[in-house]
């Protein structure tokens, strides 16, 4: 046993010695996300889209990227392990983690190690607060909550509102809190406020009955679409048809296999990306994604695609080369991201504040005849 161990150790050392000798002039981008487990749909979308973007950028011949994506199964501890693997590999810039909980853990590491990170989709505030080198491509949760309240009030969709949210999920809770803070000032009355969690995300009859009996005209659903699909199904069986209003987690509900899309008819959602858009860049991306992976890309994919392109733009502008250390790159990146303007699939004229949050305008969308249609 000891001999085997010693031999393995020797092998490991040999490989460790070999590793630095291998350098091909590509900047190493690393990221973690759930590639397996319940949230894998998001991690796979990010990984796939980032791969497409890296391929495209490398094909142009200028800046060269090398992408490595590790599985974190939407678990904070595994995300840190995955992050350490990436660090050993020599990651120079990071795409953080895909989902909020793991990203809160890895962002503390990237902050301590001075590795710049731009997460495509981890939207909780805690991922960026107090960390000068952590940036987001997506809206922060509060931004989504207040933007939703603003949108509902501006469009006069309803005055009596119900909220159903998931109380063991930072994403849902963050949106809920700012929605609740913004609602009274905008003349929205929240008549029903109910929750669920992982353990009881099957039966929503109580939450639906509460909203219905209190006369809510609109139900706000700050959650992912898998739970939302159950709520829509059960509300329809209970004969309740308010206006449904979702956020970016609702994106994907139409591609749910076997889902009766008529249930989602008339559902509003605020999201920065519309796969049906006529925009040339979006069309090309959607076509390529579909050809490669056989699916329509969701908003997470678009965010990831933008992350890689934003990196390309920033690296070019700052003259980053592959032989620079992560720390050097980090300082230059902070400078770039706080000053540059980026046009991507998920918005025109995006800018970043020093706290790492992005400014871009969400697009209101409604589901009509089984497709997302932009309202504005």
């Amino acid at each position, binding site marked *: 046993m000891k001999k085997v161990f010693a031999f393995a150790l020797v092998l490991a050392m040999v490989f460790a010695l070999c590793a630095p000798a291998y350098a091909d002039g590509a900047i190493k981008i690393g990221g973690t996300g759930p590639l*397996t*487990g*319940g*949230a*894998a*749909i998001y991690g*796979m979308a990010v990984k796939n889209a980032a791969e497409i973007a890296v391929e495209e950028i490398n094909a142009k011949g200028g800046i060269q990227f090398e992408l490595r994506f590790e599985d974190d199964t939407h678990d904070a501890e595994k995300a840190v392990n995955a992050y350490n693997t990436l660090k050993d590999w020599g990651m120079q810039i990071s795409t953080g983690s895909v989902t909020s909980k793991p990203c809160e853990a890895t962002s503390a590491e990237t902050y301590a190690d001075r590795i710049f990170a731009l997460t495509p989709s981890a939207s909780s505030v805690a991922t960026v607060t107090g960390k000068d080198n952590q940036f987001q491509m997506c809206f922060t949760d509060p931004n989504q909550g207040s933007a939703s309240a603003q949108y509902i009030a501006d469009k006069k969709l309803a005055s009596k509102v119900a909220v159903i949210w998931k*109380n063991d999920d930072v994403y849902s809770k963050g949106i809920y809190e700012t929605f609740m803070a913004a609602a009274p000032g905008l003349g929205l009355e929240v008549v029903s406020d*109910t*929750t*669920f*969690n*992982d*353990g*009881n*995300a*099957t*039966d929503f*009859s*109580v*939450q639906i*009955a*509460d909203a219905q*009996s209190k006369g809510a005209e609109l139900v706000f659903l700050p959650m992912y*679409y*898998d*739970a939302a*699909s*159950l709520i829509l*199904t059960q509300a329809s*069986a*209970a*004969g309740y048809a308010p206006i449904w209003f979702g956020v970016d987690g609702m994106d994907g509900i139409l*591609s*749910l*296999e*076997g*889902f*009766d899309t008529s249930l989602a008819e008339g559902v509003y959602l605020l999201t920065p990306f519309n796969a049906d858009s006529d925009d040339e860049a979006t069309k090309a991306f959607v076509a390529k994604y579909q050809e490669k992976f056989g699916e329509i890309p969701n908003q997470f994919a678009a965010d990831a695609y933008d992350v890689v392109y934003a990196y390309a733009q920033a690296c070019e502008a700052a003259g980053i080369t592959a032989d620079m250390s992560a720390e050097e790159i980090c300082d230059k990146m902070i400078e770039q991201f706080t000053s540059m303007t980026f046009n991507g699939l998920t918005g025109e004229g995006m800018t970043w504040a020093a706290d790492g949050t992005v400014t871009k305008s969400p697009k209101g969308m409604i589901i009509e005849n089984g497709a997302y249609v932009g309202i504005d």
Partner: protein
Amino acid sequence: MSFLNFLISGISLGSIYAIIALGYTMVYGIAKMLNFAHGDVIMVGAYVCFLAVSKSGLPPVVGILAAVVVCTVLGMVIEKLAYKPLRQATSLAVLITAIGVSYFLQNAALLLWTPNPKIFPALFARTVDGKKVTGFQLFDGQLRISYVTVITIIACIIIMVVLTLFTSRTRTGKAMRACSEDKGAAQLMGINVDTTISITFAIGSGLAAIAGVLLCSAYPTLVPTTGSMPGIKAFTAAVFGGIGSIPGAFIGGLLLGVIEILAKAYISTQMSDAIVFLVLIIVLLVKPAGLLGKKISEKV
């Protein structure tokens, strides 16, 4: 009237817990092991039925039968490969193995069927004027009962009666009870303990398939982790009712569902799970063997 509606929701959720709990308690009662992979066999059953009905367009009855057959075989294979070699090992080793099997099934399902949620077809619905109706209404639509609830309760009762008759009347059933009392003595009496335990797993897994179909008919979002949470709740229900007791599983399941929904409706949606488990703790403090459980005194 809203109270009645909540009660019905509670019964419908509880009947799902009950049918899962029956499988748990059956295997525990005889093989004396907690098959934590039970929830995941449920998930496999639901996927098989989904594939047969939604993908291959087979009639629901064929889908359900296919699920039962696949799960029964799966249950026997799991037993043969994972549990049988541990027959002489401590119960802790078997428990950990069961957790391992549970993860294995979940991850195998992720590879096979991808993590993207699938919506289970409405098997128990009739078409009225081109619209699918999944339940019936009483008192001018004030009370709504879904067909799945009725079918689940009927299925629970049938399974309960059949299982009770099976274990008390048939030769195999009697052999099972003998094994549960004393494996060694049963073997001396000429009972093939290995085969008997294999049969127990086959039956338990067949029940899991039916539970899977009913679970996903009631709550149609199907993902590879679909079975795990209801599985744990159903296990709680089985303990609540007295693990090993067949009627106990039924009552435990129903009560758990009703308490969960009423706690949500009248106390707090945030606190419902805490309340459910608080009730469980209180019941176990007062009756450590569960509501209908047999108290076994240890001979020292």
